[in-house]
């Protein structure tokens, strides 16, 4: 671990420092610092800032960036009106980690690509231009959608999958104190030629909260397929909300984890579902749309049929139509 300067922010302005990296729960950042995957010279601890509340009203909820994953999952509003979010959180990490991990930190956790975390290996994300060791290496946990020739990493968060399905927006305080909001769609960037750039955040930007509009009434699901029952990242996950009226799908919003460099959502897929009578053929069509551009890397080829099966099972559960 490289030595660093540590500053504790007592007001948002303190978080704006040139060359400084924000630390919240530290459950991801500290691991990466020990491995020298991240080598900040200055850490700004934001955990004393007033960003710990969950404010819900009839239109939606505003979640402070420092709300812990445990508190968020247990919040009665979240459990009642945003069940997919609560379930996604509880499907992630372990009790101990969730007690420490924060909402902002969870959104910004880095990929679990094992080449990214070993500095002896070429990795375009860690060391731009050095290459991508995961291509042609062990890539069972990596992406089948949205990857590029430069990087095939996945975003590991469960929470972010639920938030993406719920149309969450990230509230960002810029270095100049200005507040802006970004949908997760805009917030996360695809790797393209610059996998080191993962979000729209720039220097001095601080995530202050997440805004989620209240979802339309419907059934919530978060289904995570993993190698062991708990404490493992998703091979494939599906989260979302779906409502049925008069035997037809009235609305559907679905997001996917484990498949792509960011929580994945496909508007065409949802469009194909809405207004239709749910049946097996429709579910197949939805899976075809989701996976039309899917590309395996060898070890992870299985994710393509697994995503198909998982999506279809999720749709069966959401619609109550089993045939």
């Amino acid at each position: 671990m490289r030595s660093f300067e540590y500053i504790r922010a007592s007001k948002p302005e303190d978080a704006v420092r040139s060359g400084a990296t924000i630390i919240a729960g530290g459950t991801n950042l500290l691991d990466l610092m020990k491995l020298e995957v991240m080598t900040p010279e200055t850490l700004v601890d934001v955990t004393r800032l007033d960003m710990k509340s969950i404010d819900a009203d009839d239109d939606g909820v505003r979640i402070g960036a420092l709300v812990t994953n445990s508190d968020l999952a247990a919040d009665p509003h979240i459990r009642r009106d945003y069940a997919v979010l609560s379930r996604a959180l509880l499907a992630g990490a372990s009790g101990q980690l969730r007690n420490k991990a924060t909402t902002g930190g969870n959104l910004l956790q880095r990929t679990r690509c094992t080449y990214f975390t070993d500095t002896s290996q070429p990795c375009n994300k860690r060391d731009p231009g050095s290459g991508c060791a995961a291509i042609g290496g062990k890539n069972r946990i990596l992406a089948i959608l949205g990857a590029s020739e430069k990087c095939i990493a996945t975003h590991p968060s469960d929470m972010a999958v639920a938030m993406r399905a719920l149309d969450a927006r990230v509230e960002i305080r810029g270095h100049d104190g200005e507040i802006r909001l970004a949908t997760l769609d805009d917030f996360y960037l695809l790797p393209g030629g610059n996998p080191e750039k993962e979000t729209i955040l720039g220097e001095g930007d601080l995530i202050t909260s997440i805004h989620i509009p209240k979802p339309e009434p419907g059934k919530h699901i978060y289904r995570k397929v993993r190698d062991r029952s708990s404490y493992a990242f998703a091979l494939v996950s599906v989260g979302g909300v779906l409502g049925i009226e008069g035997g037809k799908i009235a609305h559907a919003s679905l997001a996917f984890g484990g498949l792509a460099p960011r929580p994945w959502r496909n508007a065409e897929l949802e469009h194909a579902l809405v207004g239709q009578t749910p049946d097996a053929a429709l579910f197949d069509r939805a899976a075809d749309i989701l996976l039309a551009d899917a590309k395996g890397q060898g070890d992870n080829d299985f994710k393509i049929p697994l995503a198909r099966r998982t999506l279809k099972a999720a749709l069966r559960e959401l619609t109550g139509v089993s045939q």
Partner: protein
Amino acid sequence: MTEHLKMDKVQPRMLDETGQGAITVPMDRPEGRLKVAGQATYAAEYKAENMAYGVLVRATITKGQVTSIDEGSVTSLPGVLGVFATGKMPRSPAQGTAGAAPIQPEGRVDYFGQPIAVIVAESFEQARHAASNLKIAYEAETAETDPETASEIDVPDGQLLDQGDIEAAMSDAAFTVDATYTTPPHNSAAMEPHASLAEWHGDNLVLHGAYQMLKFNREELADSLGIDPEKVRIHSPYVGGGFGGKLGISQEAIAAAVAARELKRPVRVVMARQQVFEMTMRRTESRQRVRLAADKDGKITGLAHEDRVSNLPEEGFSEPTAVASHFLYGGENRFFRQEVARIHRTTAGSVRAPGEAIGQLALECAMDELAEKTGIDPVQLRIQNIPEKHPESGLPFSSNSLAQCLTDGAERFGWSERKGVGKRREGEWFVGMGVASAARTNILMESRARVTLNPDGTALVETDMTDIGTGTYAILGQIAAEMLGLPTEKVTVELGDTNLPGASGSGGSWGAASAGSSVFLGAKAIRSKIAKSLGCAPEELRLKDGIATGANNRRPLAELMSGPISEEGHIEPGTTMEEFAQSGFGAHFCEVGVNAVTGEVRVRRMLAVFAAGRILNEKTARSQGHGGMIWGIGSALTEAIEHDPRDGRIVNHDFAEYHMPVHLDVPDLDVMFVEELDDHSNPLQSKGIGELGLSGAGAAVANAIYNACGVRVRDYPATPDKIFPHLPE
């Protein structure tokens, strides 16, 4: 005085006569509280005045020669004291019971991650930073890292056996199985990483380490440093899990000792988790072909078990994959052959139940396949093929209660409720049951202990035996208490110090039997002295709660003793080990759910029945069973080291991606012991239990998967991707 016994003949069942009631009872581990309260000091927690911190530096090539180490690239970094041990650094840890230095390759690199130096600094963080930035130049060579395509293949001595005519047996058989199974590499993955603190006092070295076999480790360390073993003291009172990973001295100990000598100050070296994976022993991967031939009644007429494992060039160890296949089942025609591929991956060595752990994943799965072909119930098929005597050597078994384990287990588990393949469905879940036999060879090793009885009715047991979390403190105290007629809390046990009499060490499941026998013998000698003071024959003596009775005499110990009585017990294996085939046996029963959509497997319940001779402590024995069964779940479902296909590097070298079972993977585990005393094993009539629980456990899980959903996974572990493609969408 020393009470010596070479185990050449059956010994009286003394522990049946003593009557104190200390033995077998499910006593808590006396040090358990210290451990859960964080008060037991582990190696990485020792501090010494003026201590410096070392961090190992690894090679980042697979094969070649270090041509230069640019010390200047780090010596200017804050706190750095130097780069050391480049000449003495061993390639690998010593193999178990080596008792001599591991290969010290002087800058030759044989696998990715091999340690080549230690950097020492004033703080751990400074040392770690320097270690990740040290510039090393190599002359790299191409390396073979794939056991399947390796060009150098050995057939080790004694790993070839051809009895009868297996080919003829196969072609004449009414039913045959010819199946190939593969198992992945494993790491012992003990919670405590490898750690050593070295302190020199003049020419004498004291090492606080985390080791399983101190008597051997001392020789290994001394030999590595080129000094007299008498000058080395290893202290290892608590070990946070060993599982074979700490059998032999490893690189951090040698590095700490060299650096401490050169710096003239204590040095502590602790491996990071990634280093534990890369530098210490892994269990080899294996490819195993099992052939079974059976007549129309399901009697096995032929059994062949061939395997390919791997190791580094010049490494003596090869996983004895087929070890239990030699005697679990009969059949006149038998064939065994092992191949060792010489490749450049992290060293292969003993990991819990070397041989049995993976051999039974294959054999017991093949038995399930044979049961299916013959239409005979898998429990019945196993029972009817248990041999009368060892099918190759012809030796009688010292004891073999396998049939009873299977029968009792089937009864308790509700085996008769088992349905046909794919016949039981609960919503999205297929549910099925599986069974497997367990066997783990029983071994007695030379061991010594000193037992001291004080007139105040307290006693002390001293030996360099280790407790790697298994309950050694508990059982040695219980044996002494039982023999000396004292409540267990009156006995203090001191372990883990090479200044104490040399024990067998913890490994090969022989620790309790071997160290336990030495304590038994020491206490037995004390009994003789007390009998003499009381004026009775030793056989007549009764010792209970500090009172001696015999020859119509009844006296408290204090009146019989003028001072402490100290005796050393010394056990050695003898002819009973050559004249009898000795093994613990057991049976595993498992019920799983397999998700019809995703292929995820969840173990729903599991039972193991063990026959391991006298049970010395029902609680710690049960815990060994639990631990083994959990390991079996991991072997069957989740655990696998992945090597990069290009350079052999271990890719998943941490606990986030090397998946051991977590709580939610482990259901209620039921463990039962059958009553058994093994008169040929040792004077305690016990057999090893530490590795038995793992043997066969994973196969019961795999067989349950097959019964649930009809998918036969022959490539362990059975992760979802190996199952769902075979299930209807």
